[in-house]
């Protein structure tokens, strides 16, 4: 910590928040808002004279409110920066008539009430998101009585009680009578692994943290009676099982089963736990003097703000989604952004440090050559066709397109930020965007070539490079056999497959067409496949109106690992193909040929505008 505070290459900005991030990989512009500290960081020696005279008492958040601090304070003894800080919301003010005592007490004159909040703009090449976790608040689990019984504390509160730097100088006491408890019970999985209340996932750290706490308790007083109530003990890491064994060896009792309720003895303030011991199938009662709730961890409230600012994705658990769970575990799908620590998933200190070093190494790998090659497969606006409607900017998952609707000047693609999904080209109502290397002309040439002879025999399959095409490869590698009528057309993303391309295939005589891409949440281009989904649903409605069977156009999400699924989808498509007669194909061609408004209608783009 101290190293980070004094490193010449690190600018430490505390009481600060990132307000906005613009630009693209290698060239991000970051606006940071920094609150005034009212104490000059470089001058303060943390002597504490100011706090001694401060008359204001405030609950100390660092000690979970178990003691108090002054309005001018040091968050904790080893805080970095080591300067004091003014809690301006609680300070009485510097008017000598009211207070101003600290200003008078400070010999170095480093308290400055005229300091103001700052906005700082910096340019960076990479961003590491290490926004951490929040603790679960057990209030809603009323059966544990956290808000009713003072001797029920959370693991975080216990941590401060047993900490030498904490409010009791490391002496664990009961809050009701301030004497050391003779018996302590730990309850595991509070707010974790529950489908009903709290979070469904395992918080990863609580089992080992509790085992550590039991050993510390035994270390303080070998006579203390310690029980741990658990579902499973997850001691899977290096050295973990040893520690678990040591805990058991020191006399800590592990009871398999979570208490159904806790009652307080009104006289002694002891706690009576009722629990079904699932190892013995017995209903048991345990009387203890103190209960510690091993609370889980969860994504912080403000995670959504960062998510939107950086165009990140989150898993169902609420943590940030990595670009690839195995091969790119510290990278975001947005190039130049990396994850470290619990922002990606709950993890302990060792894993956080490991991941942080990995993220730093990946960031360095990107920055080291001092220049980087950006995607050559990008979109380009044809200014003479653009009407500045703004649809492209709205559908772009990377915010790479800007449109000034007021001046009606043509859309501009920031080429370095464009990842090349082609969704903009597919949605542009004016055909004013060229997706290089996957142009309309190139893809239409492929469609036409596939359907040149005996088109009723062919199944055009649009497949995205990252998932469904890879799923077809996986089917190949696995030698999964399927009917030989499918003809794959590769695009980078299913978002590129415009209505125009699909209509083209039907107009050229395709009996059936498949559009395939990544599952939601897996899209290599964040959420571009959501636009595919909307587009195909729009086309189904149009097909219905035109009297065409909508099921002839299929949409499937197939991952790179789903070779079996690809095979099944191919069999389904073949089955569907056999239901289409040459007469039906001819009729479709007639309908599409006579439907003059089709192109305008299909490319109107009005629907995505309404839906978003």
């Amino acid at each position, binding site marked *: *910590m101290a*190293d980070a505070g004094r490193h010449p290459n690190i600018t430490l900005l505390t009481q600060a928040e990132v307000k906005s991030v613009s630009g693209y990989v290698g060239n991000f512009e970051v606006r940071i808002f920094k609150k005034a500290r009212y104490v000059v960081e470089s001058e303060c020696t943390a002597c504490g004279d100011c706090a001694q005279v401060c008359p204001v008492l405030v609950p100390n958040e660092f000690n979970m409110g178990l003691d108090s601090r002054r309005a001018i304070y040091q968050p904790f003894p080893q805080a970095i920066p080591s300067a004091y800080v003014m809690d301006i919301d609680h300070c009485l003010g510097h008017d000598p008539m009211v207070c101003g005592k600290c200003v008078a007490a400070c010999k170095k004159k480093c308290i400055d009430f005229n300091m103001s909040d700052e906005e700082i703009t910096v340019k960076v090449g990479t961003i590491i998101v290490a*926004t951490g976790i929040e603790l679960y608040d057990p209030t809603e689990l009323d059966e544990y009585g956290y808000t009713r019984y003072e001797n029920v504390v959370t693991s975080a509160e216990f941590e401060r009680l047993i900490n030498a730097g904490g409010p009791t100088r490391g002496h664990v006491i009961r809050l009701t009578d301030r004497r050391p408890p003779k018996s302590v019970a730990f309850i595991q999985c509070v707010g974790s692994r529950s489908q009903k209340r709290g979070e469904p996932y395992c918080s990863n750290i609580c089992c080992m943290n509790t085992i550590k706490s039991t050993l510390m308790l035994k270390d303080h007083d070998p006579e203390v009676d310690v029980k741990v109530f658990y579902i499973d003990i997850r001691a899977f890491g290096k050295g973990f099982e040893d520690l678990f064994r040591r805990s058991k060896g020191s006399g800590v009792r592990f009871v398999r089963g979570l208490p159904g309720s806790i009652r307080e003895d009104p006289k002694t303030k002891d706690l009576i736990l009722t629990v079904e011991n699932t190892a013995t199938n017995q209903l048991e009662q345990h009387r203890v003097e103190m209960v510690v709730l091993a609370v889980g961890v969860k994504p912080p409230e403000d995670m959504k703000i960062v998510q939107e600012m950086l165009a990140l994705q989150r898993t169902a658990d609420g943590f940030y989604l990595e670009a690839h769970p195995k091969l790119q575990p510290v990278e975001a799908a947005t190039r130049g952004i990396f994850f470290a*620590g619990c922002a990606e998933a709950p993890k302990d*200190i060792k894993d956080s440090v490991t991941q942080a070093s990995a993220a730093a190494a990946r960031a360095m790998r990107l920055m080291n050559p001092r220049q980087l090659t950006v995607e*050559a497969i990008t979109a380009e606006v044809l200014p003479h066709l653009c009407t500045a409607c703004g649809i492209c900017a709205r559908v772009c998952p990377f915010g790479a397109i800007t449109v000034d609707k007021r001046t009606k000047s043509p859309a501009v693609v920031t080429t370095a930020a464009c990842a090349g999904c082609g969704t903009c080209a597919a949605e542009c109502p004016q055909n004013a965007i060229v997706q290089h290397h996957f142009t309309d002309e190139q893809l239409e040439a492929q469609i036409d070539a596939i359907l040149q002879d005996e088109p009723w025999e062919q199944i055009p399959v649009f497949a995205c490079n990252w998932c469904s095409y890879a799923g077809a490869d996986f089917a190949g590698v696995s030698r*999964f056999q399927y009917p030989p009528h499918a*003809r794959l057309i590769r695009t980078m993303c299913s978002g590129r497959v415009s209505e125009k391309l699909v209509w083209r295939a039907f107009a050229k005589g395709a009996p059936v067409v498949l559009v395939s891409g990544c599952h939601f949440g897996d899209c290599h281009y964040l959420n571009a496949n959501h636009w595919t989904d909307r587009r195909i649903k729009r086309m189904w409605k149009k097909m219905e109106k035109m009297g065409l069977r909508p099921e002839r156009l299929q949409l499937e999400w197939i991952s790179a690992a789903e070779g079996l699924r690809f095979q099944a989808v191919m069999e389904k498509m073949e089955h569907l193909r056999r239901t289409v007669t040459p007469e039906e194909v001819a009729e479709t061609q007639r309908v599409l040929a006579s439907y003059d408004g089709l192109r305008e209608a299909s490319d109107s783009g009005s629907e995505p505008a309404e839906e978003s």
Partner: protein
Amino acid sequence: MERKSDTTRSRIGVYVCHCGSNIAGVVDCQAVAAYAETLPEVVVSRHEGYLCSEPGQNRIKADIAELGIDRVVVASCSPRLHEPTFRACLSEAGLNPYLLEMANLREQCSWVHSGDPEAATRKAQDLVRAAVARARLLGARKELQVPVEPATLVMGGGVAGIQAALDLADSGYKVYLVEKAPSIGGVMAWLDKTYPTMDCSI
């Protein structure tokens, strides 16, 4: 821009790979190569044992040099496997790497229709025809180089943020470490001892 006027004609070379017997064991590679030769703008069409091997790549390079081939269609395995290989091959021969198109005969024909060689060969011919049609319209693409600011923003000053910041700063990069609270340390700073070694956290 990829759009070409109709008057310019490209000179396409088609290369069908046997992949040992992986493709040739099912697909009639000779027939596919012979069929490719009949397609418009195809100047040369060959079939080879292993195109990804050095002799295979040299064959393509020689044709680019001697026959003035300006578009290459490789009918072999998945572009997800060997597109980078053949793009590099084109580059080495002085051709823009984006003037390459691949037809996937292994993963999409021989391996998945092994019981029906005739249908697999027909499909291979269709895929080659589509690849040639697309190749005619391919254009050179330039990979843009942009400068990189050698600085990192680290959002969050917990143990992970601190470690990442130190690694980067020690390696000479500028770091902006942004923390919401008045001190860095995060959750780690609350802890006295840490598992499994029971040493102190700060």
